[in-house]
């Protein structure tokens, strides 16, 4: 449904490295994806898979040192963010690109009122005066579904519940009509009933405002309900990318398959025993020269140790980085 437009955001060959004592950690290895106007891109992966670091790298949000974005292009409306100066980047953060973080308690400043924190981007980025900013702030809080918006402007973050705080974060992120909204595990810290409220709200807001969203999560259930397209990350790279129904209906990478099987459902068949993925996710001291999932993969072959497979297109908008899939495709062609 969003196939038409030119992408608002294009990431090509992004590499991020952390310098640590005694070496380097290659957190993001050659990640590429694009984001079309109005679409919701889900990013799934376990902790340490590089999903948050990728998004932080886009806007230069990682402290350097130790982080270093070593390679790649991040094109926002054709402008390469990795080559722009800090001032321009600051304008873009909270302006064209909004951010929502996982923990609403630590991402709001406890010593300023919520009103002040919403008005800050409005005054800085949009140049509004105090009165206009206040009116807009009330509008935003109402949009985010906070009852009694006008009175609550003078409240501090601790006076809000977890769900309400996340609504405040959403209001702040939406303040300057962003083209792209990056939501990093926005519902992970919330209870299921509150999570359902926030997901409903996000669906509604997308329809109303039409911004493109990148939604990072480890919860496959959340992704199934809201995403248009999904990228699955493992060991700092994209291992599978597909439209949401295709990914869940026809997963091809052994990691995606295994991940889908380890999660029990509250509605479907109940399995007697959970399928497990043996071992741990890798820590990459060097750019991987072999498939990062090799050690935990049930169907690994010798070839997997020899090289790191690149992403192969296997269907409409569906690509996979797996040696086995490559070989199958080659046999077909």
């Amino acid at each position, binding site marked *: 449904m969003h196939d038409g437009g030119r992408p608002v955001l294009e990431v090509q060959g992004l590499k991020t490295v952390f310098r640590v004592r005694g070496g380097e950690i290659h957190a993001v290895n050659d990640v590429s994806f694009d984001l079309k106007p109005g679409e919701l891109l889900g990013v799934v992966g376990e902790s340490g898979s590089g999903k948050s670091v990728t998004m932080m790298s886009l806007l230069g949000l990682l402290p350097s040192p130790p982080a270093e974005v070593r390679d790649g292009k991040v094109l926002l409306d054709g402008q390469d963010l990795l080559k722009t100066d800090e001032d321009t980047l600051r304008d873009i953060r909270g302006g064209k690109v909004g951010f929502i973080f996982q923990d609403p308690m630590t991402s709001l400043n406890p010593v300023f009122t919520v009103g002040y924190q919403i008005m800050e981007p409005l005054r800085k980025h949009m140049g509004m005066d105090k009165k206009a900013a206040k009116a807009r702030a009330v509008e935003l809080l109402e949009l985010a579904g906070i009852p009694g918006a006008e009175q609550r402007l003078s409240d501090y973050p601790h006076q809000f519940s977890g*769900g*309400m705080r996340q609504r405040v974060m959403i209001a702040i992120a939406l303040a300057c009509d962003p083209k792209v909204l990056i939501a990093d595990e926005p519902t992970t810290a919330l209870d299921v*009933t509150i999570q*359902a409220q926030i997901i409903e709200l996000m669906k509604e807001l997308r329809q109303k405002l039409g911004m493109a969203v990148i939604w990072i999560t480890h*919860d496959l259930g*959340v992704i199934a309900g809201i995403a248009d397209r999904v990228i699955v990350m493992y060991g700092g790279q994209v291992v599978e990318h597909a439209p949401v129904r295709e990914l869940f*209906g026809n997963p091809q990478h052994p990691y995606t398959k295994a991940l889908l099987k*380890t999660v029990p459902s509250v509605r479907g068949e109940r399995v007697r025993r959970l399928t*497990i993925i043996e071992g*741990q996710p890798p820590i990459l001291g060097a750019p991987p020269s072999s498939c990062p999932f090799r050690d935990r993969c049930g169907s690994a072959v010798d070839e997997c140790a020899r090289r790191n497979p690149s992403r192969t297109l296997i269907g409409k908008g569906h690509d996979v980085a797996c040696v086995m899939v490559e070989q199958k495709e080659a046999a077909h062609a």
Partner: protein
Amino acid sequence: MLDAAPSKKPLVEVRELKMHFPIYAGLLRRRVGEVKAVDGVSFDIIEGETLGLVGESGCGKSTCGRAVLRLYDLTSGSIRLEGKEIGPAPQAALRDMRPRMQMVFQDPQASLNPRMTVQAIIQEPLDEHTTLSTKEKQQKVYELMDAVGLNRRFAGRYPHAFSGGQRQRIGIARALALNPKFIVCDEPIAALDVSIQAQVVNLLEDLQEQFGLTYLFISHDLSMVRHIATRVAVMYLGKIVELAPREALYSAPLHPYTEALLSAVPEPDPSLEAKVERIILQGDVPSPANPPKGCNFCTRCPKVMDICREVEPETREVRPGHFAACHLHEITSQTAGKTAAQKEANERQHGE
């Protein structure tokens, strides 16, 4: 396998358990109220079963689990473990019972002493409660490490050298050290990655079979509880609102809160997900320091009636083994009873 066979005796019997925490305020730190974290819960845990305890954060499920192990001094209530009353007993008198009941904590990072080796951590309960020789203890620690799938070679390492899943295994080995009957697992998988969660859950299931353990499995993850539990209790604001065998609870929940909770769980299958009818609850959980009058859920309940705001519903057995505390089911079962009686009377009249 369905509902725990009624012939089996309960291992743990909890009656009217209350755990209130005082709130002090003002200059003189006067007692101004109390947080009713657990406010009169009753349940049995049958030997060999896993009772799942679910609810949102702040509903009192962890406090309940800790209170059952008498990690707190109770406000009131009775707890019987293997028939022995431990509710009002002073802490010193509980020492003999401690080896029978153990706990696995949520955060494997915080529940292991970073200055102790794995060997020392797993051995500590043995030091406290047994008179084994050093060599015997060493042997026992190795056996426990084998049982939970840790490599013996790592006995001399410190917790920081292990991953989250492995740390949780250390915590489980420590809980098993004294051959307990009953283990409270307080969110044992919440801090772990998805692919590691399944490893730990499978381990818990294996150990249950191997050692004949009984679990109280506390979690907010409804899909995992459906996998592991025999029966499930749902808590809301310090009270158990519904308790039923697993399948009955998930396929036909009786309490509106359970319904809403289950409907809110996202479905990792887009075709099923599209069919889910979500019940979106409005607002947040009220403060347990000041619960609403009547039913605790009346402020958010989509099916609220006038009576709910006045009278607290009693827990009743709506179907065999399926308990719910909701006025909806009092009324339906009463009217059902009434109509049945009327029908019978009518038939009798007609017959005459």
